[in-house]
């Protein structure tokens, strides 16, 4: 299975994301922000970093880069799409998932190992986890506070579309401790913490993040997201 990993100018975590894909047993394909097609990939990851220097708003410029056009079209037809950190911000700017990411409530950039609880293990990217499974993966962001209006929040809660929450103290001011959300279909997931930095005990705090990558390979092997 071929998983595309996008590099925008200013992306940082594309190599770790590609490594995580290979570690999980998939083929990682590099996609460039200027690519007009997706080189036949079965899923796409928008990795973390500071695309376009976070100018204007995080993800606001990247969202209109050429590669996003085929990605949005494919994701709307069910192609699995994961946005991590800056990738999550791109998904929110593209309105592929509801809400927005804003400045951490305490203003400081956060970089630490963070405990999460998996709230929805029915998506293309979370099926390898048990429901309510607790995992520890790195969290590193300056603008990670998930914001949405009350109506959207009630909808996300009611439809089980919050896929992961922070455990313990709220690290960045996200509403309802939201660390990740999915779209209605469950093929698009935005996640603020970084699973690609926690795929083996040698280089990460845990290997807990690997499940996101094995999940999508399993979903694709089973015929993709209906």
């Amino acid at each position, binding site marked *: 299975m071929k998983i595309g990993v996008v590099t925008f100018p200013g992306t940082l975590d594309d190599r770790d994301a590609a490594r995580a894909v290979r570690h999980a047993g998939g083929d990682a394909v590099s996609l460039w922000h200027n690519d007009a097609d997706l080189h036949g990939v079965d899923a796409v990851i928008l990795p973390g970093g500071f695309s376009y220097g976070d100018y204007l*708003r995080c993800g606001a410029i990247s969202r209109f880069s050429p590669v996003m056009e085929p990605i949005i079209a494919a994701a709307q037809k069910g192609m699995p799409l994961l946005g991590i950190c800056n990738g999550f911000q791109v998904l929110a700017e593209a309105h592929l998932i*509801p809400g*927005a990411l804003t*400045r951490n409530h305490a*203003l400081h950039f956060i970089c630490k190992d963070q405990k999460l609880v998996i709230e929805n293990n029915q998506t293309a990217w979370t099926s390898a986890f048990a429901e309510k499974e607790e995992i520890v993966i790195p969290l590193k962001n300056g603008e990670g*506070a998930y914001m*949405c209006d009350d109506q959207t929040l009630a909808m996300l809660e009611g439809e089980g579309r919050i896929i992961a929450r922070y455990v313990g103290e709220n690290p960045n001011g996200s509403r309802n401790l939201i660390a990740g959300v999915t779209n209605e279909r469950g093929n698009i997931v935005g996640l603020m913490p970084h699973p690609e930095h926690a795929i083996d005990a040698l280089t990460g705090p845990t290997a807990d993040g690997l499940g996101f990558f094995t999940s999508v390979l399993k979903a694709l092997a089973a015929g993709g997201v209906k």
Partner: protein
Amino acid sequence: MAKIVVDVMLKPEILDPQGKAVAAALPRLGFTFAKDVRQGKRFEIEVDGQPTAAQLAEVEKAAEKLLSNPVIETFTVRVEK
């Protein structure tokens, strides 16, 4: 040449930690007038001649699509003399 100004502000219900930090810094410098501070963005767009209604409508569209994120922000468009 005229200048079109687009002001973008976070919606009132969205927490503005930067504005809060400014509000907290002011009294430390002896400025005690501020009850609250909100921080926003201002875009100055130069165009040739007086902007037409059609141009302003285009700017409105651009402000909604790119300059602001309607999920968390509001904007105003005006022409500066």
